[in-house]
């Protein structure tokens, strides 16, 4: 039911996304209204509009709610400081929202638990209750409860961990065993049902474990593919080795599609090696001819890129001589957190004016952390440079 009500506000959201009326409030206007930075006149006008426009009202409500959730008060409350109970209520509301179809399926186990436990209790009391001590019945019931909980937990972990894509066969076997257990329980063959549920729980656990391994190897394949593509971008395409690299890349893609991630990583590594053989040698920073500012600046940008890719703090400090100690510490920390990082600088303009210059273009950063997921970030850049006694240095990066 609440789901239907939520669909109602989602409908308003869709309509606003499709374009409202000319009178509708802009996003910045709503943002300012929500955080209280609107001038009084704008507040009055916005109030009039919100009184009639459900689409803008919904957009405002979403933003206001997020500001509430992420407010420092909420942060302090979550940390255990005394205060009103706003965050717990938000959390509770969040948990009350409908589960995804996959998890909802997993939760059917909870319903089955109650049914099976009821059957178990009735059977043990009716058929054997007079022959067994109450504590034995209680122990059996506890054991069944434990096994069913393990099934539910195993299933949720397996599905939530991506076993439906990464460990399909094991997951299917687990589901089949669980269905068999449910059939046995329905026939009141409870000892056999318990054994089947135990098997199902073990298989779900195995599916979750395999999915975890597959996720790890997939991440390794992703990283290998990134490294390979970086090398490919540098390689000369008019060579036979380049064609060999392309073939290895295709084999990698094919293996990746089959979820054979380890094999894919091997192919990508082979492709990377081939591309590397036809890449032009990485230019060292030879001192460019005096007076050729453009070349000098390009050399500085190249050194900047190399400092990041080789995690060379000393080189980084040379190309960015104006860095404060705090900034340098941040750079060092960033280097330590990364497994590796690549930077591709596409320089589009270099404007020199005396001892000052600005270089602009687009940069593609690929940051592979030691822990966590790879980040790709493509953005425009403007470097401000100044010429000092030691040559050009970068003084600002925007």
């Amino acid at each position, binding site marked *: 039911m609440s789901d239907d009500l939520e669909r109602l506000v989602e409908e308003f959201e869709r309509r606003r996304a499709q374009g409202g009326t000319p009178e509708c409030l802009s996003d910045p206007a709503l943002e300012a209204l929500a955080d209280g930075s609107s001038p009084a006149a704008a507040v009055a006008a916005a109030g009039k509009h*919100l009184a009639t426009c459900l689409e803008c009202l919904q957009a405002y409500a979403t933003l206001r709610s997020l500001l509430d959730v*992420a407010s420092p008060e909420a942060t302090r409350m979550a940390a255990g400081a005394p205060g009103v109970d706003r965050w717990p209520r938000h959390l509770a509301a969040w948990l009350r929202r409908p589960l995804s179809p996959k998890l909802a399926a997993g939760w059917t186990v909870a319903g089955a638990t109650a049914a099976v436990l009821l059957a178990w209790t009735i059977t043990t009391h009716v058929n054997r209750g007079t022959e067994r001590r109450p504590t034995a019945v209680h122990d059996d019931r506890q054991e069944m409860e434990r096994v069913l909980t393990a099934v539910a937990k195993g299933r949720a972990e397996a599905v939530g961990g991506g076993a439906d894509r990464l460990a399909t066969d094991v997951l299917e076997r687990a589901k089949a065993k669980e269905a068999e257990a449910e059939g046995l329980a329905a026939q009141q063959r409870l000892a056999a049902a318990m054994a089947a549920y135990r098997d199902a729980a073990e298989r779900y656990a195995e599916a979750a474990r395999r999915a975890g391994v597959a996720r790890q190897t997939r991440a390794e394949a992703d990283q290998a593919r990134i490294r390979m593509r970086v090398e490919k971008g540098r390689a000369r395409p008019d060579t036979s080795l380049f064609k060999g690299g392309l073939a290895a890349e295709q084999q990698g893609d094919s293996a990746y599609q089959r979820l054979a991630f380890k094999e894919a990583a091997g192919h990508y590594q082979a492709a990377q090696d081939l591309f590397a053989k036809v890449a032009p040698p990485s230019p060292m920073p030879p001192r460019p001819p005096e007076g050729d500012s453009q070349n000098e600046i390009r050399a500085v940008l190249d050194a900047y890129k190399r400092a990041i890719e080789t995690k060379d703090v000393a080189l980084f400090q040379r190309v960015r001589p104006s860095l404060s100690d705090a900034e340098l510490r941040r750079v060092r920390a960033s280097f330590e957190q990364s497994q590796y990082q690549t930077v591709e600088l596409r320089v589009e303009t270099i404007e020199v004016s005396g001892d000052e210059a600005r270089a602009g273009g687009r940069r593609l950063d690929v940051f592979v952390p030691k822990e966590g997921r790879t980040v790709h970030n493509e953005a425009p850049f403007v470097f401000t440079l100044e010429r000092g006694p030691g040559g050009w240095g970068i003084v600002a990066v925007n």
Partner: protein
Amino acid sequence: MGGVVAAGTHPPLGTLLERCRGQEEAAWDEFHGWFRRLAAGVLSRFQNLSPVEREEAEDSARVAVALEVSGDRITGTTDGAIVSFVRTVLTNAARDVWRRRRPGTPLPPLLRDEGPSPAERARFQVQLECAETLVRSWSAENRFIFVMKLERAATASIKADLERLFGSFVSARTVDVRFFRLRNEVRRRCLDGASDE
């Protein structure tokens, strides 16, 4: 930040980000706590993503936002603009996760579901029209309370907004009671007749 209800009691988000850029450890801790809460609020809307996928989207967005903060590339200066920016990053991250995990599968609206069947859509359309007509027949204040509460805005914020936007002074309890009644009215008249009463 957090804005209107407690205006002036805490520094704005821009100050927090400035402290992060100054490499203040406590500021980064505060930022992560703030980000997690915002991410939970935003990503809970994407019901078609599994919990693991939502975490994946959160991780990806956190790194992206942290890089933007470190690089001083967030152009918004007000709390609303910053929250809006982070919300966009989170939404994009959620969509990226969907596309990565289900290549070739069309992106459903809000990643909520696969889309209702034609029969469900027809039923929903009737309910929607009824609910919208009903909501539009209410006073501006009641419409405001209803939509704000459905979006889970805090009662204190709704109360403050009613004063600020409509010049209407009501107690927090009144806000909650009124929403309860309005919600039941929609359910009774337009949905399946169920109510909390």
